[in-house]
């Protein structure tokens, strides 16, 4: 299906199975295309290149559309290699309202972000103006429609206790590196959880009576690595209660830890010992059902 306003006859193939519209709502593709391989990402987004590489980024295609008297519209198609990582890069900065595009999307501040299959897509304008927002959405919808293959979101998400426990859906982040974890929720300057490209991390926020609790769930390649990581975390974060793995922190809230097979579970900021324990148990149960 081609959305209204998109000139389907001028669609141009840019990648196997994907074609973009050459014009939308009077904005026309400038006929140039920039392609960046993995390390070349720094040539395009100097400071944020590490973010994409941490998600096993493969390549990026950028096109711009112009309309006289209006801001340019920029569309970026990131091949992340897997649907897990396409979801991951999308989830990392998600905060705005769902736009109903692709397999998960948000639109806010003139920026459309969505994921579908192994692709993450970003569409935005380099300025304000009438019709700009609508055109961004239409172009995004057209790109999403042209991506044929869908994919699965990370299975690990299913280990999160559900909304009845106060889960904030928009807060779910999927990532691999401690640097990205720190961007969303600072844990430590050093990589005390031994996170690496092979670890899968879910960070999620729960709201209980208006108070935020953070659940961190990490899956390691094997039980041994999970055990070593938990030991490392406890040594750095809670040396005074190393054996127990349960701590009332300086803000009077509770941090609890548990290892379940190859998983490490940590709850930060629980209002009570019991509250943390409840979230740990709920996660453990869900892991058992995976």
């Amino acid at each position, binding site marked *: 299906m081609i959305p209204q306003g998109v000139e389907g006859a001028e669609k141009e193939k840019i990648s196997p199975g994907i074609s973009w519209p050459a014009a939308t709502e009077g904005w026309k593709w400038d006929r140039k295309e920039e392609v960046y391989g993995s390390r070349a990402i720094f040539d395009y987004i100097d400071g944020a290149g590490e973010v994409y590489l941490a998600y096993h980024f493969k390549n990026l295609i950028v096109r711009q559309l112009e309309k006289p008297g209006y801001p340019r519209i920029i569309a970026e198609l990131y091949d992340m290699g897997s649907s897990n990582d396409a979801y991951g890069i999308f989830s990392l900065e998600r905060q705005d309202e769902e736009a109903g595009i692709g397999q998960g999307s948000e639109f806010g*501040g003139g920026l459309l972000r969505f994921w579908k299959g192994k692709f993450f897509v*970003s569409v935005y304008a380099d300025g304000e103006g009438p019709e700009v927002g609508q055109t961004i959405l239409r172009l995004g919808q057209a790109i999403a429609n042209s991506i044929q293959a869908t994919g699965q979101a990370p299975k690990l998400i299913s280990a999160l206790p559900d909304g009845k426990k106060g889960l904030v859906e928009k807060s779910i982040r999927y990532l691999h590196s401690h*640097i990205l974890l720190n*961007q969303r929720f600072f844990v*430590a300057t050093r990589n005390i959880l031994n996170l690496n490209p092979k670890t899968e991390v879910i960070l999620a926020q729960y709201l209980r009576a208006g108070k935020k609790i953070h659940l961190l769930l990490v899956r390691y390649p094997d039980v041994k690595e999970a055990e070593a990581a938990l030991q490392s975390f406890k040594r750095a*974060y809670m040396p005074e209660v190393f054996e127990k793995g349960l701590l009332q922190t*300086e803000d009077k809230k509770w941090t609890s830890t548990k290892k379940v097979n190859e998983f490490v579970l940590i709850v930060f900021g629980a209002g009570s010992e019991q509250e943390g324990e409840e979230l740990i148990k709920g996660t453990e149960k869900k892991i058992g059902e995976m």
Partner: protein
Amino acid sequence: MTEERAITRRDFLQGTAGMALAVSLAPEIWREAAYAEEKTRVILIRHPGAVSAEGKIHGEIVQSMVDDALKTLLSGKEPLQAWKQLFNSSDVVGIKSNSWRDLPTPKELEAAIRRRLMDAGVLEKNISIDDRGVRNNPIFQNSTALVNVRPVRTHHWAGIGSCIKNYIPFVPRPSEYHPDACADLARIWDLPVVKGKTRLNILCALQPQFYGRGASFFDRRYTWPYKGLLLGADPVAVDAVGAHLLQKKRIAFFGEERELDVQPTHINVADKKYHLGVSDLNRIHLIKLGWMEDVLI
């Protein structure tokens, strides 16, 4: 070899350390006993006439705001007396501004600072205002004092555009500081060209940007006429208050706590790792002057 202790989330919850070390790293002028306590004082001054409905900034009002704020910060009786406490005729002063296309340091604010430096006795030829050219600017290369002034706004890689971050043009490859949410920006403040020279930090909150998505984002719908200035000797304390202001505005605007693209971790790290100043709001004495409508903090 002993492994360096990790700074953890718990360090940020403690609100300890920092103060004594911060004072010890401060320029001599701030180490004098009478001013040691001012290290963690931050002045917020607002004026309803500072920015017109059309967005025009009124220079005379901005001048009086800077004067009143500095006078209060230094507990002086007269503004000029306060300026003279910080600067004298032998100083070579670089005013580190910010020239970002969409929300630069207002010319009116730059002019107010330059005027008072000259009133305090600094020779005009020994004053320079610069941003991206500071590394090749002889005044900055030979400076004895710096004034750090920039607008407060959201920032894709650092969480917020802060006073700490404003010194990034002093390094040859700024991108080296981008990883890890720019956590180590405070390291720049240890470079010889900068170290111990900053006598005043000003976060311009006349029209802050409180929300943004992605790099180079600017949209006037997400700026607002706060008509304020945040001013202090401690860049970390000034930035902590600035970050708090943006957070409060996002909550007021969206009706919920919207997270920044990245957490402004560099402010806490500047305190706990680099001991550049104080990031704990409980330990910052915020003094509010002037217009209080919708003050938010």
